[in-house]
């Protein structure tokens, strides 16, 4: 190309682009299409396989919508009309019925005889065994979650015949059957998986990571990591009512305010991962439905590391619990979405409900007196660590705490820690003195929460809290049924200790807020906090 043509060409291109106007763009309203649902979310799945190491939280939605489990939970309607899953009832999914042996040491599951995977192959007990063996063997998160339900070894899983499957229990536990209905124990098409297994990779993790092989209500139509996931209905689904929606498009939109704008302008049907502010605003406007359900068994809380002075002194912890500006936090960080967790009546819990308000309220004089008594009348300095990934609520909360503690002489510089780093420091090394945390247990039992968060060495006990009484109580309570006479007194005792010792100071119980257009119906709240697309419809 010589200089003349080069210049001529660039001038041409320049002229062409310059004459294009910023034309009015009409958003193609998918809302007009009743069979297609459009969802926007903050972040998307990083794997199609919930058993894979490193699988993130949004990937659980894949397990929920694309795979089946033996059992599922029933539903109930909450006071505000929102439908929620009901942890007290288990309903059939792949198993049409099941019997627990009289000695409570095993259970037999009868699978549906007509149900098939997407490729037409019948779902058999062999598939269930292969999938469960995989979950307890691959290690990492799936194995830990299975273990929570006392499902630990492949020997526990037995194929009786093509359509009968048996689980031998290690111990009778109230957690075993509910644990079969969480997202982890998915049923994989074992023949497809085995065809892609290698000696190095006997569980076909490479293949299943990219390509789901299941028989759930939805099939995967498209997955562009970081961009979108598209589900398409599996018309021959037998394990529940066939979904009304033919197609679900889930787009990733990192900016929360854009997600809000999209739902407000009618460009999306559902907007997920809404910060409390956006949820509160949308709720106040009447154009959008916001389903807000306090997340069960979950609190946003301030953790105090009891192995680091001065938090080894109970009086210092109590002083801090009296110095937190609960109302301000609930106002400015939670925008009053959720349930308050302060101002309880008594140090003796009246019920075995969890979480329940702690018997503390903002009382700076009491806080000062306690600090004085503990010999810290002049205050001290301690970093307040927050997870950058949760900055939406942790940052305003931390700023308000910082200001309030400053009034009783405690200086708290704020340390923002990126998400990857957070896991290491807070949960594994447990090296953060004062930190804001959020933990919720999938299985909705107080003893399950205490097991993870109050027993020394357990992952979510970032406070390093250690109390032999709690350990014994958790051990005694974890597996017994809720109608056992020891259950309620045990739980109350645990809660009383948590009130008194306050290694963890609950601030509020957060909401799971989901905004949807008025014509979207059938939304259900689930403990796994993912969108279950199967019951949704557009009218």
């Amino acid at each position, binding site marked *: 190309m010589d200089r003349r043509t080069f210049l001529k060409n660039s001038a041409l291109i320049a002229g062409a682009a310059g004459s294009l106007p910023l034309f009015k763009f009409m958003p193609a309203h998918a809302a007009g299409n009743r069979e297609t649902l459009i969802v926007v979310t903050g972040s998307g799945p990083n794997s199609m396989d919930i058993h894979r190491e490193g699988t993130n939280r949004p990937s659980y939605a894949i397990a929920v919508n694309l795979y089946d489990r033996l059992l599922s939970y029933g539903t109930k309607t909450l006071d505000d009309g929102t439908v929620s899953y009901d942890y007290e009832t288990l309903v059939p999914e792949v198993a049409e019925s099941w019997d627990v042996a009289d000695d409570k040491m095993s259970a037999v599951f009868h699978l549906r005889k007509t149900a098939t995977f997407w490729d037409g192959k019948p779902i058999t007990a062999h598939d269930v065994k292969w999938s469960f063996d995989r979950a307890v063997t691959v290690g990492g998160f799936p194995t830990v979650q299975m273990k929570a339900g006392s499902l630990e070894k492949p020997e526990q899983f037995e194929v009786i015949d093509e359509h009968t499957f048996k689980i031998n229990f290690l111990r009778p536990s109230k957690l075993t059957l509910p644990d079969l209905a969480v997202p982890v124990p998915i049923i994989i098409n074992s023949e497809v998986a085995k065809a892609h297994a290698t000696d190095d990779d006997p569980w076909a993790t490479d293949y299943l990571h990219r390509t789901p092989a299941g028989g759930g209500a939805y099939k995967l139509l498209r997955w562009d990591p970081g961009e979108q996931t598209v589900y398409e209905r599996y018309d021959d689904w037998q394990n529940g009512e066939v979904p009304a929606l033919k197609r679900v498009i889930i787009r990733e939109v990192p900016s929360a*305010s854009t997600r*809000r704008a999209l739902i407000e302008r009618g460009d999306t049907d559902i907007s997920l991962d809404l*910060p409390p*502010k956006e949820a509160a605003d949308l709720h106040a406007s009447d154009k959008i439905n916001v389903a807000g359900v306090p997340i069960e068994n979950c609190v946003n809380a301030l953790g105090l590391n009891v192995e680091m002075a001065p938090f080894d002194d109970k009086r210092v912890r109590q002083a801090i619990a009296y110095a937190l500006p609960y109302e301000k936090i609930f106002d*400015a960080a939670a925008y009053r979405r959720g349930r308050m967790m302060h101002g309880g009546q008594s140090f003796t819990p009246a019920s075995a409900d969890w979480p329940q308000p702690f018997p503390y309220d903002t009382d700076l004089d009491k806080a000062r007196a306690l600090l004085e008594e503990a010999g810290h009348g002049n205050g001290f300095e301690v970093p307040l660590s927050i997870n950058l990934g949760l900055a939406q609520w942790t*940052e*305003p909360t931390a700023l308000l705490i910082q200001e309030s503690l400053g009034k009783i002489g405690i200086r708290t510089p704020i340390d923002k820690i990126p998400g990857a780093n957070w896991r290491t420091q807070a949960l594994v090394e447990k090296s953060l003195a004062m930190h804001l945390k959020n933990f919720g247990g999938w299985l909705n039992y107080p003893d399950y929460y205490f097991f993870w968060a109050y027993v020394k060495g357990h992952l979510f006990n970032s406070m390093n809290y250690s109390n032999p009484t709690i350990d014994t109580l958790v051990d005694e309570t974890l597996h017994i049924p809720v109608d056992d006479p020891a259950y309620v007194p045990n739980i109350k005792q645990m809660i009383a200790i948590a009130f008194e010792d306050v290694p963890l100071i609950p601030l509020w119980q957060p909401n799971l807020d989901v905004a949807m257009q008025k014509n979207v119906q059938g939304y259900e709240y689930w403990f796994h906090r993912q969108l279950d697309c199967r019951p949704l419809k557009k009218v």
Partner: protein
Amino acid sequence: MAAASTFTHARYVLGENPLTVVAFAMFFVLVLLAAFGPWIAPYDPLASDTAIKLMAPSAEHWFGTDHLGRDVLSRVIVATRLDLMIALSAVALAFFGGSVLGSLAGYYGGWTDRVIGRVIDTVMAFPLFVLAMGIVAVLGNSVENIVYATAVINLPFYARVARAEIGVRRESGFAAAAKVAGNGNIGVLARHLYPNILPAMMVQLSLNMGWAILNAAGLSFIGLGVRPPTPEWGIMVAEGAQFIVSGEWWLAVFPGVSLMIAVFCFNMMGDGLRDLIDPRRRT
């Protein structure tokens, strides 16, 4: 050139370019705010009051209040000092480091030049903002580390100018004369060559100040900025950005405009300085 004629020249250039005068005036205001900000601010920039959170601009709060009920005007004023400090220290570090490396490379040539040249090329081959992100992510987000990261990505510009300018003058008569007069290499470099290249380096300075402020703001936007609750314009824009769609524009717009004015002012001053220093303008 005598001082008097420099002054005449400056007056001529400034007279021809009133924008530079405006920029210098704005810079003066910024310096005043940086020096006396804490006394000028009408409220405590850190005091929260959730009862008045997210209030639109009014007579009591000219720039409104933020999501914790803090006075935005006070925060914008108090932030001036920190923002100018970040830019100034980052650019000063880069200026110093770049001068040393560039001068050594230009003066000694050969292997010194090759090694330093490669190091500079390596830095330049990075997407610079991503390099800054990486440095802050590794060192942790504190004011000092933001300054270091910004300095590192600015350094190559000075190093290149210094290397080129020293290289041109290395063989000149006055350098040789200084050497004959018994000066060591470092002495020739520091006392005789370096002062001559200062004007060329100075032009970069003002432009880079603006860039340094933008860089710090960008880091804040992705969560690697200054620690809260310290008021800083970039972080205020980043925090305020999430409130724009819900109509609370004042959180982002006022610090954003302040940021813009500061960068604008540095850029204009840079232009003005170039006009003053660029010898061709003098003919």
